[in-house]
């Protein structure tokens, strides 16, 4: 597994929102920032991740482009998980899928909490948020 380790230097962009997704990363040491852009192109820090945290896994799960930009906040060593390895772990490592499910749920809770907060803060935009299109439309198959 050691040969899959790669180092990103402080300030280095690991990937950009909108890019195609080829691999996931597990942090071995260091710290990264997850940034998302609003419709004006302003980038803001959503959360930071540290040792043993995984990122970039959604692209491997659904093959859609990166949903966020990730930047190394300090020199950071990551284990790179290519698609083939990801598929292997999914099949043969019972803990892998379970830990992915947990980390995705955490991520979803965090977003829902942020959305609820925004809704409470800006009653004026409430009308636009009455329907969350497609939010619960995802078939489990």
């Amino acid at each position, binding site marked *: 597994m050691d040969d899959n380790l790669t180092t990103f230097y402080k300030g280095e962009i690991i990937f950009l929102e909108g890019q195609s997704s080829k691999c996931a990363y597990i942090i071995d040491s260091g710290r990264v920032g997850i940034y998302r852009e609003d419709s004006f192109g302003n980038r803001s820090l959503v959360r930071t991740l540290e040792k043993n945290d995984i990122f970039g896994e959604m692209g491997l799960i*659904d093959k859609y482009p990166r949903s966020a930009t990730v930047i190394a906040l300090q020199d950071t060593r990551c284990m790179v998980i290519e698609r083939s390895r990801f598929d292997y772990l999914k099949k043969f490592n019972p803990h892998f899928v379970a830990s992915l499910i947990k980390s*995705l749920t955490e991520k979803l809770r965090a*977003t829902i909490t942020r959305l609820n907060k925004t809704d409470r803060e800006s*009653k004026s935009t409430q009308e636009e948020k009455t329907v*969350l299109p497609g939010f619960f439309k995802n078939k489990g198959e």
Partner: protein
Amino acid sequence: MQIKHFEPGEVVFETDSPSDCAYIVEEGKFEVSKALNGKKMVIGILSEKDIFGEMGLIDGQPRSATITALEKSTVSVITQECFNSIERTNPEALVPLLRVLSARIRSSYKLEI
């Protein structure tokens, strides 16, 4: 898996109630809603093969929404024991759940912009 039936208007669970299982819609339709600023907000409709309540099953935190049957409906109940046993014996069966979570995260991100 246990099967449960719901009549139109019947509530499966309410926002903030304790979580102990997830559900798969076998037949019928459910409405997903939240109360925000005292107003009921419908955030989605669930139909056959949709899964709901999985977040509570995974992290044990209270329900993030209210689920109400819109018509005569049937669901399969996934209990904690059932989930754990799938996790142990056939982790790949949980992969669809990864896709559901991933899709929900992406849709929720869109709402933030």
